[in-house]
């Protein structure tokens, strides 16, 4: 059913109707051919968040460049549109041709945040689909997922027919075509899934049985028969430089979160921060060449009309040709009033120099992430940044004329004590003091120094060395945040922190198991939506949802035994379990592990396990291959 005409004029009654109109410059609307494979990509959050997600854009353009595939988009409807659709008895619809989900062969979710799980259910429900894969009908679309949080997908695994583990660019088209040919052969869905399960990276949750002991701890995770692989190995793009990258990005009308041209200069980071999910699960580092990047950027700017390009990566400044790249970009684009922005800075003077190069046109704030308050605790998390490094970096920034500095810290880290909190206070106050001193020596009248301190709660994540660590208690967390607030509540300092309950729920899902699936459904039925949005998050609903299912949420926050079978045991992100254990051990001893890009291999075994090489493009780097 084409829902367009019915919904079109009613959008005047919802907030931000431009979220639902599609029609962006560069939109791809294909002829609806009978034998095309129709894929609907779904992002379980609002348009302005989803449209800022690079993975989604890559998939959209990658699929649409195939003649036999049509790819359209859908995002979560804001509660006012959900209500309108229910009132008018209309289904959720695609942005391109306003078709309902049942007209598509595949509904493919991009997952990047645990707190958007209930939004998956809203989309399924508004499409008239059953939540559980096992209960859907033979002719329902295939419902699949992938994304940055698949290192533990178990709490939502049973909603999906299959989940793709890893980077999909190199194999997505083959996967879609393979599914289509199996379907055309007339096979039943369960047989199709068994065949699909043989493809590397494809995880069919229904083909794995999970048994629990009477404490609720996993006894074993076993495939339903011998033909199903025991572990699902993460897939990686081996040649990022040559990998597909879109050049005709959609140009939204709305002011989306990242409203600029985006180019991914490298993928993976081997700095080895022990809390960092992305750092552990996107290894090894692979870079695009400067020449490739310049061409991509030129084409993207021409095709979109953006006046800003963001060089994005887990650690932008670590790209081995970053200096030359920025030099070339500023020379080329300064006259055209196009500015360059860096997505992440290291805590050092080099970063400030680069930021100065790129911010000749427009000067915004600078962000640094020391993450912890003492050198000791920074060694625990393997941050490898000293207090002096931070002061040198901010002094350079103040001298260059910046007046706003944002500092990121975490609380609740393993081994954290009162000294570490006092350390945060001292660092922030020292930064403010040095800023004021430098400002005094300047003759120009400038904006007053501002320090924005952002405190996030440490959440132990699956597939990181801290996966066994307990989540901090709510009372202790509150105490710590209150302490920091009381000490940092002064002029020139702006303090923000995460909601304690929200962090706990995120922590529950990060290391949760399949028993949580019913909890998510109960919470959704009780009205949970957009839980990651402060205005909507209702902790009471979630407590009730746990009670509904006779589960204790504290079970999921506890410390794990090293011998325990963890819910994500069968998902192989590529790091040796011994490496994770060794890293955890070193963390507790506050010992550093250096970056393998600049030192010898640290035996995380990614390169060996995934048959891939560390791939940096600069010449003057001393790289040891694993």
């Amino acid at each position, binding site marked *: 059913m084409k829902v367009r005409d019915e919904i*079109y*004029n009613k*959008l*005047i*009654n919802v907030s931000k*109707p*431009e979220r639902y*109109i*599609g*029609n*962006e*410059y560069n*939109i791809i609307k294909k002829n609806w051919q009978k034998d095309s494979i129709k894929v609907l990509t779904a992002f379980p959050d609002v348009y302005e968040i989803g449209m800022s997600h690079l993975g989604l854009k890559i998939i959209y353009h990658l699929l649409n460049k195939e003649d036999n595939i049509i790819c359209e988009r859908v995002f979560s409807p804001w509660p006012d549109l959900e209500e309108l659709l229910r009132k008018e008895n209309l289904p959720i619809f695609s942005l391109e041709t306003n078709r309902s989900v049942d007209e598509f062969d595949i509904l493919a979710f991009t997952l990047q945040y645990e707190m958007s799980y209930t939004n998956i259910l809203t989309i399924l429900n508004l499409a008239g689909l059953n939540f559980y894969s096992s209960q859907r009908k033979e002719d329902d679309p295939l419902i699949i997922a992938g994304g940055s949080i698949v290192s533990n997908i178990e709490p939502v695994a049973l909603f999906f027919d299959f989940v793709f583990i890893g980077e999909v660019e190199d194999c997505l088209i083959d996967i879609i075509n393979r599914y289509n040919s199996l379907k055309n052969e007339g096979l039943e869905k369960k047989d199709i899934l068994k065949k699909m399960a043989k493809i590397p990276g494809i995880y069919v949750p229904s083909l794995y049985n999970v048994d629990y002991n009477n404490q609720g701890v996993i006894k074993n995770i076993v495939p339903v028969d011998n033909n199903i692989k025991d572990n699902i190995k993460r897939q990686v793009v081996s040649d990022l430089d040559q990998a597909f990258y879109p050049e005709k990005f959609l*140009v939204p*009308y*709305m*002011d989306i979160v990242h409203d600029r041209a985006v180019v991914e200069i490298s993928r993976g980071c081997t700095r080895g921060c022990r809390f960092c999910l992305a750092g552990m699960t996107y290894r090894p580092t692979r870079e695009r060449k400067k020449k490739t990047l310049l061409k991509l950027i030129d084409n993207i*700017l*021409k*095709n*979109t*009309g*953006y*006046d800003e390009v963001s060089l994005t990566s887990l650690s932008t400044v670590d790209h081995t040709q970053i200096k030359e790249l920025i030099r070339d970009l500023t020379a080329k684009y300064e006259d*055209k*009033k196009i500015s360059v922005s860096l997505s992440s800075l290291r805590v050092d003077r080099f970063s400030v120099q680069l930021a100065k190069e790129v911010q000749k*046109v*427009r000067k915004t704030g600078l962000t640094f992430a020391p993450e912890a308050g003492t050198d000791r605790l920074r060694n625990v998390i393997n941050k490898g940044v000293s207090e002096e490094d931070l002061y040198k970096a901010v002094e350079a920034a103040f001298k260059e004329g910046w007046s706003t500095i944002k500092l990121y810290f975490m609380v609740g880290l393993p081994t954290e004590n009162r000294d570490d909190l006092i350390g945060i206070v001292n660092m922030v106050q020292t930064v403010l003091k040095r800023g004021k001193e430098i400002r005094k020596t300047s003759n120009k009248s400038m904006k007053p120094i501002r320090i924005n301190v952002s405190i996030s709660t440490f959440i132990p994540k699956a597939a990181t060395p801290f996966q066994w660590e307990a989540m901090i208690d709510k009372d202790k967390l509150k105490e710590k945040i209150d302490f920091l607030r009381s000490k940092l509540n002064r002029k020139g300092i702006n303090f923000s922190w995460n909601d304690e309950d929200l962090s706990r729920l995120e922590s529950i899902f990060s290391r949760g198991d399949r028993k949580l699936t019913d909890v998510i459904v109960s919470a959704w039925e009780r009205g949970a939506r957009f839980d990651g949005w402060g205005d909507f998050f209702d902790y009471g609903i979630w407590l009730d949802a746990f009670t509904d299912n006779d589960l204790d949420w504290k079970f999921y926050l506890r410390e794990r035994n090293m011998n325990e079978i963890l819910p994500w045991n069968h998902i192989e992100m590529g790091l040796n379990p011994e490496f994770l254990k060794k890293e955890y051990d070193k963390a507790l001893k506050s010992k550093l592990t250096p970056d393998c890009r600049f030192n010898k291999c640290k035996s995380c075994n990614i390169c060996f396990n995934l048959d891939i090489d560390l791939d940096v493009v600069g010449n003057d780097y001393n790289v040891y291959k694993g």
Partner: protein
Amino acid sequence: MYIRAEYEKREQLKYISHLELMNTFRKTFRRAEIPVKYSQGYNPHIIFSMSQPLPVGMIGFHEYFDLELKEKNSLGLIKDKINKSLPFGLKVIDVVIIDEKEKSLQAVVNTAIYSYEMSFNSETIKQESLLNDFLNEKKIEITRFRRNKENRMIDLAPMIYNGRVLNDNIWEFTISTGSSGNVRPQEVIRALKSNTKGLIREIPLVNIKRLGMYIKKGGRLYKPTNKEVLKKEVSKS
């Protein structure tokens, strides 16, 4: 060189706000490689201004913007280039050269014509006579709701210049717009509703379309691109 362009905003794009529309044009100019002029200073921006905003949800058939270019250009070429780079729903209809001292669109545009898809019981209403009675009122008082300010009473009568029934339930009103007396298009409906004791019902904003914007001068309506209301271009050498 300064240019004035006439354009339409239709289809789904009726839902984008004035600010989003301005950003869309800015990106379009860059995609089309129009030699736009940037302002001086810390935060350079394209020198570009528009006529009175359309409310979100309303289609406009003849809207206008002014733009400064760095160098002389063929108007036909500029129009083609912009149109090739605009998203579906926006289209430039006409481009003229204007003098650099020309007053801004918002300063000169003072009249707008709207069409209304009306809602009433057609069996009990004689459209023409009802409309004529309304237009002949000496005073049409309504409450104006103002954001962050107190409501106040205003008289619409001197600001409604004309009205007619186009066909079926489509009516058309010519009303004052801009800084020297502004009527919000939905205020006409509210006034009709109260004058007819509810025989005319309120309608959603999407039922109203802006047919055109004009400069009213000596009892006549001119398009802002009409040579008769534009200064003669002073050629800069």
